[in-house]
């Protein structure tokens, strides 16, 4: 089987790999990119655990072949950093609100929430729930996840003033 050379930037770091075309992006991110924070929960694009940002937009990294992403800028949850704090404040909010139980959905949840928060401030709890429609959580019942996102949003609004 022929392989195709590709280059990605993962959290700002170049990752070069030679891949067979049938390898899903998530596998290349985990194996060659060492981004173990990207999880595989279903392989169908349903659960949201493999969420990453591709050129800024959230995608199912299980439903994109790595060759399709050649040249793309990828952000995983570990790429969400805050230069001032050790922990990105949205992640801190998740931790403080107990919004992670088993934690397997958390990277996808955080990335999805952050993408929406960059587009809209002051969302209602119902809107936040709508944002998370495609990210399944089996542990929390979502209440504390919404709490965390809402509290981060408020905190950011206050700091904007």
């Amino acid at each position, binding site marked *: 089987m022929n392989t195709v050379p590709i280059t990605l930037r993962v959290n700002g770091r170049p990752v070069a790999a030679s891949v067979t075309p049938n390898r899903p992006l998530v596998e290349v991110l985990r194996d060659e990119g060492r981004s173990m924070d990207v999880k595989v929960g279903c392989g*169908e694009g349903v659960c949201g655990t493999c969420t990453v940002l591709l050129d800024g937009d959230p995608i199912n990294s299980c439903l994109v072949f790595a060759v399709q992403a050649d040249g793309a800028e990828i952000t995983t949850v570990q790429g969400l950093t805050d230069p001032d704090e050790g922990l990105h404040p949205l992640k801190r909010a998740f931790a*403080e609100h107990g919004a*992670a139980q*088993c934690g*397997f959905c958390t990277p996808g949840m955080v990335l999805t929430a952050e993408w929406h928060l960059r587009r809209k401030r002051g969302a209602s709890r119902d809107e936040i729930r709508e944002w998370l*429609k495609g990210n399944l959580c*089996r542990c929390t019942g*979502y209440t504390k996840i919404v709490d965390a996102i809402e509290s981060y949003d408020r905190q950011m609004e206050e700091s904007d003033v």
Partner: protein
Amino acid sequence: MSETLAAPRQEQRSRRDELHRDFVEKVSGSLRYADDWSMPGMLHGVVVRATLPSARIVSIDTEQARLFPGVRAVLTAADVPHNVASEDPSGLGNDSVVMPVLAVDRVRYDGEPLALVAAETQEAAEAAAQLVVVDLEEIPGVFSVEAAMAPGAPAVHANGNEFVQWHVGRGDPDTAMEQAHLIVDETYHTQHVDHAYLEPESGIGWIDTDGVLTLRVSTQVIEHARELADILQLPQSKVRVIATFMGGGFGGKEDMTVEPHVALLAWKTQMPVRMVWSRQESLLARQKRHPLTMRYRTGVDASGRILAQDITIYGNAGAYPMLSARVLFASAAHACGPYQVEDVRIRSHAIFTNTVPTSAFRGFGAMQVVFAHEQQIEHIAERLGLPADQVRRINFVSRGVRRPSGETLDTEVSVEDCLDQVRSTLNSVPAAANGVRIGRGVACNMHPYGRNVFIADRASAWMGFEPDGTLVIRCGVTDLGAGQAASLVQIASEILGTTVGRTTVHIGDSALNPLAGGTFASRQLYMSGNAVEQVARELRDLLAPVAAGLLGTAIDELVWVDDTVSPRTRPDSKLELGELVRHAEGMGVMPYAHSTYHAETGSFDPKTGTGRTAPDYTYGAHGVEVEVDEATGLVKVLRYVACHDVGRIISRNRVEGQIQGAVAQGVGYALSEDILIEDGSNTTTLFANYLMPTAPQLPDIETIVLERHLGKGPLGARGIGEPPIGPVASAIASAIHDAVGVRLATLPMTPERVRGAIRANASTNATHTDEAAVR
């Protein structure tokens, strides 16, 4: 203050929950789950599964698969030294039925493991698995409990299709039933559901440098190391299981999953092997929750007091026992719920069928029955024209009351307090509009925590200080995301005044940590928590004389807080724990201890159906408000209130999280989740078709956490992992009835079923109206 009320919290407990390391790692994405580990030279394992539910295995030809490039091993049943994945131990001496690791001669369910492949890449392993030629000859099977019980039905196992029958009861229900003013006779049906934790079953195994077969795996039970040794015919000391933090478990990682496969492949190849089940094979073939058919005959007097109850429960065990004996025992033992019944007969049966096996799942047989016992209350109230709450209240159990098995409740009961809390939180009903009707319902339950007392459960822990005063806890507990590890740190801090940041807890390693038993049966806080509380007290007792001597005070004057110890009257004369420890060691007092907590024990006689069952219970009440779209049958949960008395809160965030998560699972169970099986084959094998609730489908789940009556866990805590999943389905069923006047007896209450009931109800009413008009 009554002696049963929880003691006031210590000052340190009022502080905000400290950020435990598990939370920080999870939000950062740095926590390593089982599938995130790899080893040099690692192989990838894949399972070859049956494609028919009932068949004779004519042959399995592995030749082509073996020749596929990169393949290192292809194993079948003949390669398994002792081909027994489990023999079911109920603790009550029923016959065991063997489940093989790899099927021999006979396929008993669709998806049953037949062969294993290990190859250098995952892709090669998958490709080679497709080259294993399996010749199956289909033979008649039984795909439902009814079919399995029919005369002349094909036998799933040699001894017939009834795996086990339990009886629990006392008094004379037949005579008492004759005295009844009203007998309510209803039958309820529940479905197969999947745990659907987001982390698929996964693990890696290798032969470590000490020659020990070592597995790092996502499991609730590291004690499976011993079963693995038996399978491989190795000394039990030669197998070690390290549990990773799980990406969810809910009972689905209580039985072994990938462990025997990984162990066999690693042992045969002498190379590290990783195996990860795909979501689709997990949905296809891993065990589900037992579907139950529950017939309840309840005799009441005119006031609604329950005089007699006769309950028959059939559970679909699937093709192998797994934990069915225990699950159906729990269904029987807890079938009456939090209601007093003097004359009662309960029979439960676990029936083999050629369908996917069923086993442990949060609630473990004691959650399905809540749907039945709560709907019985609703039926009784409706037919007597009484408020359902009134019927509940006159029948609630209380301390000292005897349960169906004859045992006595020996701690305080707070189910009525919970009901009061829920009722006062749910207020007036908003008006219906636009073809959408609003209704509400409540449901109550009591759920056991801890294993049945005849199992003589125990948990051990080790605790010690380093010379710098930091604390180390070793305990074989596994953490499925509920904060089992962090809770131990919290409990230690309550006794020793240690802080979270200066405590390290080592969990889930069968070789290096004292065994604590698995994380299931809402037992882990109760068992390991008590073990840790006990060993912390022992450690404090060891060090206290040294501290008292150094501080010139009496032992009972010592205050342990913030990694220091000081005399109560002289808080400024602090001794750092490190200093204390160094002094103690200098005096030959070693700053560590090991302790085993033994749960209370008792016996149950399966012949008479009487004796002791669970050590204690957690009580609760839930209230829900739903809207029902009459045109489509779609039910939306608008509001949810859940109240439980946990005795003592160890971590508020985590208690609330357990309640909220259980309610969400309960909502899926009530309304949408269903593993559909057609002619024995599971047709719900895509995550896209398994309808677990998403964020927009759920409201904020309001929790009311009471600390009213102390339980038997550490510091008086009661278990909370399972109890909150029980009441959900019944509360929702009652709310649907309140909204649109139909009562469903079959779960899940899908839009089609609700709409069908509304349609049937409308045509019945129309007929009645017509008849009235004629008259």
